[in-house]
């Protein structure tokens, strides 16, 4: 007897291509609203990551360090090109610039306290320097943004490091954006703004139009700080080679390079998805340019955008950066679940909100400890890899300690493909 039951089976077509649910919902939104979409957090698309690089362990060719009993130095000096008081931090992980406004006061204080627990630096972000942040931070970086909201000479005087901000990875080439529902009375006073407006701030520095003016502007900032404080320029990854050359020529002590994976409180989805280039190739291009200019040892390089763990840190340093900046990662440590709704101001964890009820939910000291633990663990992870590679200093990691596991990473970084000495693309310090 034939037991097979004959049935008409309708094949199931699953749309993996262009017309997937996300595309359709995007079009539905635009068809209804007639405008582009704003969203928090940053890019959601796939971008190449440092996971495509592997660290080579020391075996017979070199000796590894004792993981548990021998030291690996993580102290980092930043901005020693011309500044007479360079920044010294205990671990090469800084807290990236996130504004009081995008974040709650409690979140900002927690982040500042975390820097005091770990000996590192926090950047204030747009919209002024919160006194409670300054009181609690170990070292304070102060951003000079095109908007200059809440900015004055007092901020410069308080700085251990200055960041002249040109752009951020999440929305390079765009002005700052803070949704009206986050501009409470307190934030408005702080930023010298009317309450509740959607803030679309300045796209360019009104006091430095172009590279030539910036040379003079740098001289002004040196005058103001008596040449003591390191001055960095924060640029979003785009035409990295040209921008790095200009920044060096302008006379900065260091560069903060923010890749396209960088986060933000609110940005047009178009910008997060399509503007700029990812962190890894941007870093490679920046290092290559600094080396070609012969200033690699004097100009500090900090990278940000998608840095999540100690492996990222170790690889970034091996490629040639001096430090990383973490933003989203630090928020996650405080409890953020990356729901991408920062722009609504309704963060139930009390992090990306100004709602007094939600803010009460964030335990400042608990959050500070978690961020500090995250920074310590990340440092320990990087040190673990560095020791396995035989380094007594984290900074001694070098490109020769890396290999690419994908053709894509190999072509993008100039680091040879695993199991070979082949590089598909521009070479990057490896002899053929």
């Amino acid at each position, binding site marked *: 007897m034939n037991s097979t039951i004959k049935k008409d089976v309708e094949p199931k077509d699953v749309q993996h291509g262009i017309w997937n649910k996300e595309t359709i919902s995007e079009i539905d939104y635009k068809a209804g609203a007639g*405008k*582009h979409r704003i969203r928090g957090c940053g890019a959601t698309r796939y971008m190449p990551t440092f996971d495509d690089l592997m660290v080579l362990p020391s075996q017979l060719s070199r000796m590894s360090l004792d993981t548990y009993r021998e030291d690996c130095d993580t102290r980092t000096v930043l901005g020693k090109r011309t500044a007479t008081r360079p920044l010294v931090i205990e671990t090469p992980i800084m807290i990236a610039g996130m504004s009081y406004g995008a974040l709650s006061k409690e979140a900002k204080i927690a982040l500042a306290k975390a820097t005091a627990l770990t000996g590192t630096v926090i950047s204030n972000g747009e919209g002024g320097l919160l006194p409670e942040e300054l009181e609690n931070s170990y070292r304070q970086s102060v951003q000079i943004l095109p*908007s*200059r*909201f809440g*900015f*004055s*000479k007092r901020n*410069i005087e308080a700085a251990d490091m200055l960041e002249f901000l040109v752009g951020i990875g999440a929305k390079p080439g765009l002005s700052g954006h803070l949704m*009206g529902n986050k501009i409470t009375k307190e934030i408005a006073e702080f930023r*010298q*703004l*009317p*309450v*509740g*407006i*959607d803030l*679309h*701030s*300045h796209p360019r520095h*009104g*006091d*430095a*139009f172009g590279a030539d*003016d910036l040379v*003079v*502007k740098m*001289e*002004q900032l040196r*005058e*103001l700080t008596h040449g003591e404080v390191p001055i960095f320029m924060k640029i979003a990854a785009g035409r990295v080679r040209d921008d790095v050359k200009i920044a060096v020529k302008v006379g900065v002590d260091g560069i903060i390079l923010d890749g396209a994976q960088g986060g933000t409180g609110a940005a047009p989805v178009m910008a997060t998805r399509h503007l700029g280039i990812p962190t890894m190739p941007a870093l490679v291009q920046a290092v290559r340019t600094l080396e070609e200019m012969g200033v690699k040892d004097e100009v500090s390089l900090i990278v940000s955008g998608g840095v999540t763990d100690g492996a990222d840190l170790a690889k970034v340093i091996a490629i040639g950066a001096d430090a990383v900046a973490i933003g989203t990662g630090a928020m996650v440590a405080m409890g953020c679940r990356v729901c991408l709704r920062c722009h609504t101001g309704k963060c139930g964890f009390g992090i990306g909100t100004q709602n007094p009820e939600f803010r009460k939910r964030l335990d400042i000291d608990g959050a500070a400890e978690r961020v500090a633990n995250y920074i310590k663990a990340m440092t320990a992870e990087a040190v673990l890899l560095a020791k396995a590679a035989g380094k007594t200093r984290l900074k001694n990691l070098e490109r020769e300690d890396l290999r690419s596991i994908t053709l894509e990473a190999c072509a993008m970084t100039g680091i040879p493909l695993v199991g070979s000495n082949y590089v598909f693309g521009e070479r990057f310090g490896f002899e053929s």
Partner: protein
Amino acid sequence: MEHINAADLSTSELNKKIIQGLKAGGEVSIQNPHSMHNIATGLSRPGTVTIQGSTGFYTGGFLEGSTVIIEGNAGWYVGDNMMDGELLIRKNTGCNAGTYLSGGTVVIYGSTGSRVGYGMKGGTIIVCGSVGAWAGQMTLGGKLIVLGKLGADIGESMYRGAIFVRDKDAEKKLGSNVFLDHIQAGEARELEELFKRYGIDAKSEAFQVIRPLPSGRHSYALFNPELKPELAQKMRS
């Protein structure tokens, strides 16, 4: 009065000498400025610095409390980020004068270029001559007073503050998000006092005021792209 010859000095050396001069006597005169940049940066000592000639970029940037007089022309960004004090320019200036001003008074006795008072947050800027385009763009506070002709798009995207103008064509030159209003009695009195103090021959009644729209919400071209299908009709033979 201390006299400083700036001819062979670097910016840093000159600024140090200015501070020493103010400490010694409260009045300093600078000869041969040769359009040097960054003169009197962040000067916060009481006293008067008179520059006998023209200056380059950023003169009196971050100035805080001193009086600086430029007896010639000033380059771009004069008085940028100024906090307090007085900055008097006897002739003309380049663009972006008084950018991000947060306090004090800038008086330009001649004309100025574009974007005077860009992003200013407080203080007063008086321009006796004409101004270029985008004067007072993105102003967050303070007073900008223009006696001469206006350029295009004045007060574009102001959030707060007031721009006092007496150009009869002001209505045609407004930026977006602003409107032209009558001057109030208190404002008129302030203007009269300022004119008297700085020796400016003008009457407050001739002035109108440009203010930000009270809605508090700004409209931008990006959010409402103006597509004009009627202008793209098929060519008719």
